[in-house]
């Protein structure tokens, strides 16, 4: 097949996947604003490598892997910031709905889960989001996180346990505040 350079097939890739990758990165970084930069970077890298991609490759899983990789490097570069984030999120968990922003969104279960997920270590947070939100299979998650499918499953399991625990704690705080 002769591919015409003026009809760029990558435009279809952007149209199909950018919004989802952006949403993933917003969770994976726990800071939606960073998803803007990282999602652009993901697609710029993908664009350069796209030609070398085998035609039968799973483009969506491949994009998630690039995004995850960028995210991890981002955290390596900003290690201290991540620790600060984790501390803040842990604080959020402790204080629960008494946190001003928490108050407004606390009745929404999904927002509460997002708050807890934001405080998880990176691998658990990414694995949880890839599996539970974007429904990638464990093989693909393993490739994204550069670990085995089994380790990927273990990360999701650990994350789920903590989310459950976190929700329980929130409920406890909530009920204790009732007179």
């Amino acid at each position, binding site marked *: 097949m*002769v591919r015409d*350079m003026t009809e760029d097939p990558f435009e279809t890739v952007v149209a199909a996947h950018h*919004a989802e990758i952006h949403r993933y990165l917003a969770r994976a970084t726990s800071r939606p604003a960073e998803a803007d930069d990282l999602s652009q970077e993901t697609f710029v890298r993908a664009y350069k490598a796209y030609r070398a991609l085998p035609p039968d490759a799973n483009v969506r899983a491949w994009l998630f892997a690039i995004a995850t990789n960028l995210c991890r490097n981002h955290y390596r570069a900003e290690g201290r910031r991540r620790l600060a984030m984790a501390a803040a999120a842990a604080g959020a968990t402790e204080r629960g709905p008494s946190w001003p922003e928490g108050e407004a969104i606390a009745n929404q279960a999904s927002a509460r889960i997002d708050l807890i997920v934001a405080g998880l270590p990176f691998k658990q947070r990414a694995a949880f989001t890839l599996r539970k939100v974007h*429904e990638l299979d464990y093989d693909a998650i393993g490739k994204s996180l550069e670990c085995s499918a089994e380790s990927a499953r273990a990360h999701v399991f650990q994350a789920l346990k903590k989310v459950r625990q976190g*929700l329980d704690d929130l409920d406890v705080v909530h009920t204790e505040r009732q007179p």
Partner: protein
Amino acid sequence: MNAENRTCREIEPDLVAVAAGEAGASAARSVERHVGICRGCRDELARYRVLEGMVADLRRAPLAGADPTLARAELESRLADIRSRMVAYGIFSSPLGKLLIARSELGVSMVRYIDSERSAKAYVARLAGDDAVEDKAAVEGTYRELLDYLNARSTRLSWQLDLRWAGSDFQRRVLAATAQLPYGAITSYSGIARRIGAPGSVRAVAQALRHNPIPIAIPCHRVIGSSGDLTGYAGSKIGLKERLLSLEGVPVGHAAHKIDRGHMYVLYEGYTEYCLPTCGSLATEPMSQLTLFGTRRHAESVGLTPCSSCRPDLHPISA
């Protein structure tokens, strides 16, 4: 769940898998057995099921503060910028040996005779850096057209050209004038110099053509020395110049690398008739005023008519 109980601890991953609908048959059976006898784990399973339901809402609920619209718009403009700089290239074999062909979204930007693939790739990388990607499929069509041309199945390469690797305005002017030379016609370096309004810059014209980034498509092989010498081509590939000219019906004296004006039809600048080389004072006119044709067919294919006094149609040059 009793935290002290080993079975409960060990079964928790399976419990979670069952809640998520991911458990295998045997794991599902042991979970079913266990929750039948363990109330704590039964409750636990119920809670994980509730949790799965809440988690499923994450897929539908919008994420606060995460609007991709702006990022998407910025991305599109970055991609457009990268796309315009990007050059795809491939290396192909041809009757003239191995060729590197490169093109961008603007058009063909390079045809290069190569000896070694490695040094050719290094050359492109030096010129274009990250903007060059090897992608044979993207240049395959261009290659096919070139192959048709080199095998005399076509006489036109109607390519858009991207002159990004022309070094200067002067070189662009030289290349543009050269690109106007029709198939089967030749002129001299002094002829090109005159056409671009720089009649004194004959040597600079030769230099500019020596570094022609798109030979064949920009037919620098149709430009020769005023004495009829082929002079040079793509460094030391004068044999290729002869082959390209022979393809176009230009008689080349192979031994001397020379073209004999006495065997070519002649167009004097500004005329619409072509002549025999002996017509009037043509034999002594400077090459810079002349365009030569190897065959009448090629002269007539650009709209020229036979001269009414020397009548090349009645007295064709014998081969």
